């Protein structure tokens, strides 16, 4: 347990105001719970912002991927400010331009089509995790 294990910290926005924030949150949870459970750790953004020591130290010592719902990029800005440049950044609104997206559902409850979009974003995050780990020195 003392040798540094290869883990990637995922910092997601939870943007309450818009559906892309919910997509960001759900996609991140899918990566943590299903797609890359052994390789990833979640960093709780509100705790990170409020000064959470463990969150900030982890983000400083391990590579991170930020997942933002929109181009305000709160997760990326916070990570850079408090810990260091993330290894990779994903912005959901940008990522969606690559898919043929249906009309997205409400921010509160994702319908099947929007959930399918969240799964694609999760796949994208998982690819980035693999890429970061491949280049781990």
């Amino acid at each position: 347990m003392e040798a540094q294990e290869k883990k990637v910290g995922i910092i997601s926005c939870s943007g309450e105001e818009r559906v892309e924030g919910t997509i960001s949150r759900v996609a991140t949870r899918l990566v943590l719970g299903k797609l890359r459970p052994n390789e990833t750790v979640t960093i709780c953004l509100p705790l990170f912002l409020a000064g959470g020591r463990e969150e900030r130290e982890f983000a400083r010592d391990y590579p991170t991927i930020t997942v933002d719902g929109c181009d305000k990029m709160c997760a990326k800005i916070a990570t850079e400010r408090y810990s260091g440049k993330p290894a990779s950044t994903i912005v959901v609104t940008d990522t969606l331009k690559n898919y043929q997206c249906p009309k997205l559902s409400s921010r509160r409850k994702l319908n099947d089509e929007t959930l399918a979009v969240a799964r694609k974003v999760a796949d994208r995050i998982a690819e980035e995790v693999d890429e970061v780990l491949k280049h781990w020195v």
Partner: protein
Amino acid sequence: MSEYLTTTFDKFELRVRKGFYYTKDDLWVSIENGKVKVGVSDYLQKTSGDVAFVEVAKPGSTVEKDKEFGTMESAKTTVELLSPLSGRLDEANTKLSGSPELVNSDPYGEGWLVIIAPHNIEFDRASLLSADEYFKLMLEKLQSEHDKLESR
């Protein structure tokens, strides 16, 4: 020199307070002026989640080694608290009824659970773990959880 033995698991730092004794069920024991203070280890509070209720036997009750003297409840789980020794429960930490989160935020300090007047501390102490021994046990538990995740 730190007063803790520490290790890191994912992003969490887990601490074992030096100078205390421990049980295999993750309680700590501190002997002060012939009485024994009991609490939960950092490992147990972390794995239990946010504590919402702590309920223990009334002051004046007799407690028996390895028998339940109370429960600790979070939304995630309910933990049976097994007494590390036999004796009389003299005091319960009354702060925990209004602020159970003290168990999470300060498990070795303000989050203590009970104080017991032991019947035979020398006899009961023999079966407790030292801080180093408990630290090793905690690492084994963490490794076992890690292996479980890997095999999923």
